[in-house]
């Protein structure tokens, strides 16, 4: 193996490890997802929008910059930061493959505020969540149902439905999928009175 390919390998391993850190720490994942949603942000924006103390915000942003997943877009004060696109495919021995995307990092970042995502990661790990996210995208595209997912993964249909619903917001945030089905107006229900609750 040549020296240069060794170096390239080293870079890839470094990237992989920094992304693994992201997936292991919910707050870093949250911050990355926040930066990936907008175009760029200052540390003040981060403090305001994610409700972080100044020291914490600086430390997280710096860790993401050091990890290479966030870059400084404007060095003038106040500095502006933007997320770099992550699209990392990991192949396990055999032929299982998963892709780490901003959507997955976003999903992991939501575990603190979403009990269903939190439980799912506890039971099936981040790798399991990555698989569930693949099904969530396919389901919103009308390619698969919660029952097929349950069958494939040997979980109850109800557990499949729960995690698919928990991931739905992530799917629509990161993928451009048109909403299917009739709207309330199209239902043509004769008379919905304003309020007789």
């Amino acid at each position, binding site marked *: 193996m040549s020296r240069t390919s060794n170096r390239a390998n080293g870079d890839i391993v470094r990237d992989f490890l920094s992304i693994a850190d992201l997936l292991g720490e919910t707050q870093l994942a949250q911050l990355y997802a926040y930066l990936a949603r907008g175009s760029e942000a200052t540390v003040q924006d981060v403090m305001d929008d994610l409700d972080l103390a100044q020291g914490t915000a600086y430390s997280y942003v710096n860790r993401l910059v050091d990890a290479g997943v966030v870059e400084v877009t404007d060095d003038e004060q106040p500095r502006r930061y933007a997320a770099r696109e992550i699209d990392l495919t990991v192949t396990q021995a055999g032929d299982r493959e998963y892709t780490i995307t901003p959507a997955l990092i976003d999903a992991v970042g939501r575990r603190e505020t979403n009990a269903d995502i939190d439980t799912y990661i506890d039971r099936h790990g981040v790798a399991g969540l990555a698989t569930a996210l693949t099904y969530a995208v396919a389901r919103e595209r009308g390619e698969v*149902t919660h029952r097929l997912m349950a069958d494939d993964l040997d979980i109850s249909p109800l557990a499949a439905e*729960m995690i*698919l*619903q928990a991931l739905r917001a992530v799917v629509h945030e990161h993928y451009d999928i048109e*909403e299917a089905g009739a709207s309330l107006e199209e239902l043509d229900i004769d008379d*919905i009175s*304003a309020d007789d609750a």
Partner: protein
Amino acid sequence: MNRFYIADTGLFVAMGQPSNSRYQAVRRFARQNDVTFVLPERVYEELTVDDPDVEDVPVDAAIDEGWAMVATPLEFSKPIVSRVMDGIQRYIANADDRPADEVERADAALAALAAQELCMGAATEVYIYTTDIAAGEGAETVLASEGYGDSVTFVNGFRFIEDLRSTGH
């Protein structure tokens, strides 16, 4: 005009607990419009499974309150019921490139129940509330091929609840 409302697992999961405003919005919709959501047996079984990893879904509360009920068993002796079951399994299998016999029969039970009600003349319009787009669109497609294209509407459970809430229900 007789309307029949079929609900899938996802609608009940999306409503949350009775204390949740989504649950209350759907209940209000049902009461105001005299709607009873009918669940195929398989759907009811899914919702009441004993799984320690998931929170209980209050389907029995909705049944007790009178705006949901479990359907009687499907009548497979009616040719259209079996035909629609097979048709949906093929449709969903095709959407995901897998053999039809791998597709869960509960996915097909929604459309089969619709077919049964329509062919018996018990209903003239059927609405299928599901969060599985493949099951909903499959039902519309397969029932259209049976001549019931204008009688079946797939309602996306998420969109339904969002619409109810944005219109102040």
